[in-house]
């Protein structure tokens, strides 16, 4: 069973969000990286870009597949993980830590209410994929 930290919120598309005041740090879940396999490229928006909840904000490519990334919340990108272009494998090795992708300053903090709890996300992924 993939690791699902209790303090994070989740989307059905397998992104996680860590709420830090009016900001949300975003990445993909352990389940998602395991399904993708070796990540070799992550395409992210630039700092200052606007993203919209449940719209795509970028792309993650593994050796075999390409997958869209969905923004859990709407807002402005205030930080991106500058390590990922050089070390995309961080998404595999530490999906909730060094493999984070971006930080969004939320336009509407109520977006968080629409995200899944860890318990619900765990139910979503239980037995899935294999």
């Amino acid at each position, binding site marked *: 069973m993939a690791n699902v930290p209790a303090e994070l919120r989740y989307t059905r598309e397998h992104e996680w969000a860590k709420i830090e005041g009016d900001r949300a740090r975003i990445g993909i879940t352990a389940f998602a990286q395991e*399904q993708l*396999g*070796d990540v*070799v*490229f992550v*395409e992210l928006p630039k700092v200052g870009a606007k993203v919209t909840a449940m719209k795509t904000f970028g*792309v993650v*490519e*593994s*050796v*075999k597949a*390409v997958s869209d990334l969905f923004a859990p919340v709407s807002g402005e990108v205030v930080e991106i993980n500058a390590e990922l*272009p050089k070390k*995309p494998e961080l998404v*595999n090795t530490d999906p909730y830590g060094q493999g984070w992708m971006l930080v969004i300053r939320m336009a509407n903090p109520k977006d968080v209410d629409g995200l899944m709890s860890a318990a619900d996300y765990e139910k979503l992924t239980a037995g*899935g*994929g*294999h």
Partner: protein
Amino acid sequence: MTDTTGETPLKRTPLRDVHVKAGAKMVPFGGWDMPVQYTGIIDEHRAVRRGVGLFDISHMGEFEVRGPDALAAVQRLCTNDARTLEIGQVQYAALCYPEGGIVDDLTVYRLAADHYMLVVNASNIDKDWTWVTSHSVGRAEWKNVSDETALLAVQGPKAEALVARLADRDVTGIHYYRFARGAVAGVPALISRTGYTGEDGFELYVAAGGAERLWAALIEAGRPDGIQPIGLGARDTLRLEMKYALYGNDIDQTTNPLEAGLGWVVKPAKGEFIGREAIEALRARGIPRKLVGFEMVERAVPRHGYRLLSGGAPVGVVTSGSFGPSVERSIGMGYVPSAQSAVGSELAVEIRGTAHGARVVKTPFYPSHTKKA
């Protein structure tokens, strides 16, 4: 990520349960339930380049043909010249349509004076069987032995020593594209110095019933070498780094051997074969497009079907693409106009609506380590 198997149940190799038990991620491939990866594609790819990897490729098809006209039948079907084959020798070739398109690519084994084995792609077994049996000539008896034959590939710089330890005969003297019969771990095998990785190694043809025993023995004996089971994912990245064509991706009915860079297995001087006239006409007219290898300037990954651009205009299509774990960059193959096919030609690949820079490079992308001597 759901397993949509469709209407027909997937076929299974004799080792399917072994893969599942080993934790492989299974996927449908050409109608077969196959392991795509065990630990991860990059890890498995590197294991083959650095040590030794074990592949179950029992999904491949094997046809035998024997009789006084077996050679004549092979000569009519295949583009290469099987007359030059000695007993114990293997040859790469193509089956072509009269129009010059490719039915399949294959290897031809001369088992005995009037006895050959054709090894074909898994996804083409039914099509090829119909093709060879309906275009055969003279007294040649065909037998489809695909279901009763298992095929394991042992590939990597440590493959030779591993197989040598388990074999009841010398295998170090089997040269590239040669084979011999012997027992490996007590399992009678056709031991072939061939592969699809660019590394030295063997492909071992055994009876289906012996596959599990041979697999287990190789895993056990290869433990000190760090042997790993290798899935289709790494098989694909390994062959891509060598620019080996994959049927259905880089070659098919709509491509001919000349533009695919397979002119070296077309031997018109040998006499009549299916597709000869069309291929000769193509050669005389000149080849308008060629299959090239290219590397990406950035890391974005080219994929099968993406458009190739030159000067902003579409000029061709990507037939295979991936991140190459040994070359550590994104690489691909595709057809481009001959004028843009020279090494150094600047191209772009359209990825999600944006042109990403690429350039034609010398291939193989990664140096071959097959034992050519």
